[in-house]
């Protein structure tokens, strides 16, 4: 009978446009849309910033050094036009009005400093709200500085090597897979948790509160099917909806990485492909199924208790934040899976998944996380059953 109820509830759920939107359409489309918009906006911004012709205002003495050096820089570093100013007051005023995008003040004794081989001061003005301008100025100045440094070494007849006492070489022993796992691995379960919760929400409300509100629950309760079987049939659809929504989101993310060039780096793509192996996906679902059952078990008592769809929605929606915050904790680099974190629901699943992606999993801790989550899921199902069995909750 559980399967009969499951089949019917699934059929009804798949015919509900609102649930379909939340369960499949939005999760599938969200990442392609976000990645498409982000990549097109950022690439157009980068292109724009690199090719943008900027005006640089300069205050320095006639036949100044900086103007000469700047004009000699290749155009590949960005087109520029130099404007001479008599004082910094006017220069700053024009910078504020965006008539110029960078400003430089070279003091009158600049050349004296250069000749005396002591650091020569240059003040650079930029507007931090005009993104990329500070970087452009730093780029120009570092080239000019390097050129002057070489000239100074030559003048002093010193080999550049002699000024460098130590050659430090930093070697990273972590594989790319480990780094992705530890630093960004929490993102995958985070997406799963957020969409899983959203996917569970509408079917839970529709199948419990909705049935009560529409007056169909009475007839169902007069059939010779034990209440626990009715609960399990319905709960199966809630869990499946959550898993489907989360899988759809991951599928959307994967497709956008594959087809929209979400990741440009070929090496990184190879690592991503190696992470997404069938055994990883099976293990991931093993960890996430008890979590989804736990979500369903938390939502169902609320949906059973609520008298209207609106009431259920107003209680469950804020719960979303309560559930997703622990998932965010797992996103922070440095938060590791240990005896304590393995006992914290939601956090333990995020951290276990991170370890799984990095390939550094401790089987005992992952097993502990799984057991903790399974115990909580069973407890949540038991509470759901107690609520569903209470006649005042089921009938209006």
């Amino acid at each position: 009978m559980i399967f009969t109820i499951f089949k019917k509830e699934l059929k009804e759920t798949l015919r509900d446009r609102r649930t379909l939107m939340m369960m499949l359409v939005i999760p599938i489309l969200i990442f392609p849309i976000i990645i498409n918009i982000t990549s097109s906006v950022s690439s157009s911004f980068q292109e724009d910033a690199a090719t943008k012709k900027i005006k640089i205002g300069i205050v320095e003495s006639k036949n100044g050094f900086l103007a000469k050096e700047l004009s000699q820089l290749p155009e590949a570093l960005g087109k520029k036009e130099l404007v001479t100013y008599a004082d910094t007051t006017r220069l700053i005023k024009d910078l504020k009005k965006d008539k110029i995008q960078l400003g430089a003040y070279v003091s009158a004794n600049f050349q004296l400093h250069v000749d005396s081989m002591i650091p020569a001061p240059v003040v650079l003005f930029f507007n931090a709200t005009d993104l990329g301008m500070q970087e452009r100025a730093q780029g120009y100045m570092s080239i000019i500085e390097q050129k002057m440094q070489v000239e100074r070494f030559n003048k002093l007849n010193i080999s550049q090597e002699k000024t460098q006492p130590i050659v430090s070489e930093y070697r990273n022993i972590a594989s790319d897979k480990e780094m992705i796992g530890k630093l960004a691995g929490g993102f995958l379960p985070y997406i799963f948790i957020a969409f899983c919760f959203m996917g569970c929400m509408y079917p839970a409300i529709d199948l419990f509160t909705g049935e009560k509100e529409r007056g169909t629950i009475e007839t169902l309760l007069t059939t010779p099917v034990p209440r626990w079987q009715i609960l399990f049939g319905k709960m199966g659809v809630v869990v499946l909806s959550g898993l489907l929504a989360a899988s759809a989101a991951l599928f959307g993310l994967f497709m956008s990485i594959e087809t929209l060039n979400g990741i440009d780096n070929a090496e990184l793509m190879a690592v991503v492909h190696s992470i997404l192996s069938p055994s990883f996906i099976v293990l991931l679902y093993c960890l996430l199924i008890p979590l989804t059952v736990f979500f369903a078990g938390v939502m169902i008592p609320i949906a059973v208790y609520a008298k209207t769809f609106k009431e259920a929605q107003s209680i469950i929606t804020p719960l979303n934040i309560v559930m997703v915050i622990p998932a965010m904790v797992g996103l922070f680099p440095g938060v590791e899976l240990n005896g304590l974190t393995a006992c914290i629901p939601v956090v333990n699943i995020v951290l276990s998944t991170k370890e799984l992606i990095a390939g550094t999993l401790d089987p005992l801790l992952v097993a502990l996380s799984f057991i903790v989550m399974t115990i909580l899921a069973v407890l949540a199902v038991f509470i759901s059953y107690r609520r569903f069995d209470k006649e005042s909750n089921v009938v209006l």
Partner: protein
Amino acid sequence: MIQVSNLSKTFDLTRQQRKELNTEERTALAVDNISFRCEPGRIFSLLGPNGAGKTTTMRMLSTIYKPSAGEIIMGGTDAVKNPQEARRKIGFLTGSTGLYARLTPNELIQYFGELYGVSKDNIAKRKEHLYTLLDMHDFQNKRIGKLSTGMKQKVSICRTMIHDPEIIVFDEPTSGLDVITAENIIHLIQNCKEQGKTVIFSSHIMSEVDLLCDDLAIIHKGELLFSGTMNDFKGQMQTDNLTAEFIRIVHQSQNA
């Protein structure tokens, strides 16, 4: 046959409900020690004003509510101790019954047939019989949400009768329906009687009661004020008509 003995139902009141009812009591007695008997091939009517305890009684008979005290025997099965078994014998229909709007009548009837444990062959046979009887063939594959009230009522009847129950419980089955739609229910009740089924229906519409019932009970504030045959009731009337007599009995109990 339905045998109800010393049936009571007490509900726990929440703080909100106590506030609404302006009472300090932690419980409310909805049905107070009532007993009656419904015979096969006869129609029994449970009469009472709004809030009398009719729906609570009907929900206990259909095993949705568990009684606080008393016994219910449905077709020889103790419905309190063995509700699952009793449900196989009961068809339950209320005026406020909702249907799954996203399913078609065919899907809904099939679903309930399976829930009642009817074999696939029997579901097909019963469906064909009921569709012909209720003239449902034309809309059997349309979504229920798109059907008219009359069509939906026919689907409800079909759902109630798919497992050919020996006892039918109707809780205010015609409430909210127009006379034409209500006629389907009246015919159904009469058909059930002809087939020798046990029929109990709750109502506060005296014309319906006069037309259909053989036996009746009057309930008010959870207490049984009268239980007997329609002929007995008519024989001891102190007013001109059934409605006036019903009102008189209710008022008399309030003043007592």
